[in-house]
């Protein structure tokens, strides 16, 4: 029963979404839209799960003064400092809530956003070290990949574009057409089609109850 009921729910929900896609809205109502709204509501409740998990996992090392406890204390204080002013009513003070000029807004714009940008910027360093380490012409395919990567890297910057244009005026557009608009599209489409087919198969397997590992069961 414990595993049968979720499978039945999965089947009926999947069937409802497929039916909503196929059947006229007048005949079936807005079942699809309604189910999507239910998902939003459930997702809202599960946010609480996340907060409980963070607090539970981090408060014990702080209380026991385990290794690195001060980092976990900083985390808990950050959760409190961001979360508590955000959920308090704006009527108490204009600095509460999540609107413009609130504490939440200030923390986001002056701490969160710069930190997020910094993390993203690290990609530049990491791609340089990954390229140095991994881009080796070990075989024919790797060499072709390497040459294409160098061509595209040059093409994407003004300096490189000018270099190509000095070789032949139509060369930059040729790279755009044949590399980006040719080989690139073919590969992207292949991956997208393959992944979409597999995702659809997985969806069908979940609907039919064959695939159950996502809910802790073994597949049938």
């Amino acid at each position, binding site marked *: 029963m414990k595993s049968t009921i979720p499978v039945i729910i999965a089947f009926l929900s999947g069937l409802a979404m497929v039916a909503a896609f196929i059947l006229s809205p007048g005949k079936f109502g807005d079942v699809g839209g309604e189910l999507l709204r239910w998902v939003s509501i459930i997702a809202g409740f599960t946010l609480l799960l996340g907060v409980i998990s963070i607090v539970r996992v981090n408060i014990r090392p702080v209380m026991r003064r385990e290794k*690195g406890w001060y980092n976990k204390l900083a985390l808990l204080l950050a959760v409190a400092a961001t979360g508590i002013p955000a959920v308090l009513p704006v009527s108490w003070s204009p600095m509460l809530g999540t609107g413009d000029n609130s504490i939440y807004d200030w923390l986001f714009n002056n701490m969160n956003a710069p930190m*997020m940008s910094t993390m993203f910027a690290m990609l530049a360093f*990491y791609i340089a070290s*990954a*390229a140095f380490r991994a881009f080796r012409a070990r075989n024919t395919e790797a060499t072709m990949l390497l040459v294409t990567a160098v061509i595209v890297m040059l093409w994407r910057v003004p300096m490189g574009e000018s270099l190509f244009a000095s070789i032949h005026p139509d060369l930059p557009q040729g790279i755009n057409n044949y590399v980006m608009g040719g080989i690139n599209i073919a590969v992207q489409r292949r991956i997208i089609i393959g992944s979409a087919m597999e995702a659809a198969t997985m969806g069908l397997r979940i609907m039919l109850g*064959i695939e159950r590992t*996502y809910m*802790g069961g*073994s597949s049938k």
Partner: protein
Amino acid sequence: MNFARRFALTFFLTLILSASAMAQDNQAPVDEGWFRSYRFNAIVLIVVFSAAITYYTNRAKRGEKLFIRKLAGLDAVEEAVGRATEMGRPVLFIPGINEIDVMDTIAGLSILGRVAKITARYETPLHVPVRYPMVLAAAQEVVQQAYIEEGKGDAQDRDAVQYVAGEQMAFTATVNGYMMRERPAANIFMGAFYAESLLLAETGNAAGSIQIAGTAQPEQLPFFIAACDYTLMGEELFAASAYLSHEPIMLGGLKGQDWMKVLIIAAIITGTLITTFSTDVEWLNKLFEVR
């Protein structure tokens, strides 16, 4: 019935049924009758697709042996966990950074179940940071079930699966910090990844971990291929569940969908030839248009 006859029958049946969609008024969707007539071609595709999957699943159930090619990345999972056990270091598993309603995440959780069984068997510490609370709930259930099935329910670390942060870069920073402090012997990234893919993989490489990644996001594959030891590309991620279990029913589904790919290839070739040699291709656009 041999391959050629089966293929021809399916292809032309699909074409004939879809051609009836052109008889419908595809200019403006009109809600008449029970079905959305302007989606008839999609309905046909759904029917053919489901029939192919079901047909081969039934053949697999009847005992027919189905071939699946080697996936080096998945063969390396047990080896990676074994390495972690020998070194006395944990295994880090990330089931992607997207929500539970994304197929990539479900595929990742499927693989997590298998990995958790192996770590339960060898009593290797497992760490699973997640980005969404719903994924947390599902992953906890998956890991718990895996440990129970291995008879190691008591050995399970309740905090193995942790909700880390809801924000992408905060999640990445936390996981990177964990990798540099704990130095897991094996990192397994299976699911949907975005900008943080290289940040995670390169940090794992710096920490000296063996890394196995799998994602269906085409733009992230180059980063994983550059920084990881093994990479599953696109549909290989979704096939992992079938591959690891080797259950005939799952393999049957794979074969059915391979058939659909053959149909798509035939449609692409046919469409290319028609577009190249014909001046009027509006009917072809209408045939494949889905609204």
